């Protein structure tokens, strides 16, 4: 398995500001992903974090709003930019190991006021 540390665990932010979420894994993984989970909903994939290159975004998500970095095989960040109350969600980092198993961090609960 993989141990994933995600920070912060929660935050309350003012609209118009930005928040950067960090995801650290205890071992090298093949793939890293960022998901959003809105209240009472299932998980929606935001993007695939690619090591050393631009992230691959899903339909409805853009780089200007959700810039992602992945400088190495064990670390990634997701920034939620120019936040509005509609961005209030849980944001989750996920990794796929060499055994093709997928694990999740504990999530960042974001509230925008």
């Amino acid at each position, binding site marked *: *398995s993989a141990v994933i540390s*995600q920070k912060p665990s929660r935050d309350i932010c003012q609209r118009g500001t930005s928040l950067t979420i960090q995801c650290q894994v205890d071992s090298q993984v093949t*793939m890293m*992903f960022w998901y959003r989970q809105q209240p009472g*909903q*299932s*998980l929606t*994939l935001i993007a*695939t974090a690619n090591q050393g290159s631009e992230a691959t975004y899903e339909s409805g998500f853009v780089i200007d709003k959700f810039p992602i970095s992945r400088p190495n095989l064990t670390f990634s960040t997701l920034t939620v930019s120019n936040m509005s109350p509609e961005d209030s969600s*849980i944001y*989750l980092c*996920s990794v*796929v190991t060499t055994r*093709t*198993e*997928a*694990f*999740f*961090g*504990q*999530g960042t*609960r974001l509230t925008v006021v």
Partner: protein
Amino acid sequence: EDQVTQSPEALRLQEGESSSLNCSYTVSGLRGLFWYRQDPGKGPEFLFTLYSAGEEKEKERLKATLTKKESFLHITAPKPEDSATYLCAARSGNTGKLIFGQGTTLQVKP
């Protein structure tokens, strides 16, 4: 189009009352069917991965099975601590992405 559907949306059981959760999938070139447990305010906790039809995996009171079209999560003699949302996800062979169902929220009453 790749799709995963879970049923029922919600399930209430008495302690000790066994039941099953269903996950139907339509995914090109399935590369794994995943089950997770999610408690309120927490990230999904990995339970099982199944890769081929006929495969079964067990963990305590949970057993997951897989056919070519669906997966079942059987819960035997559940306890109140089994109360959670159970998520199913299928990995597409074309894209490598996990496609999630909407989840089944299980409540086990003592």
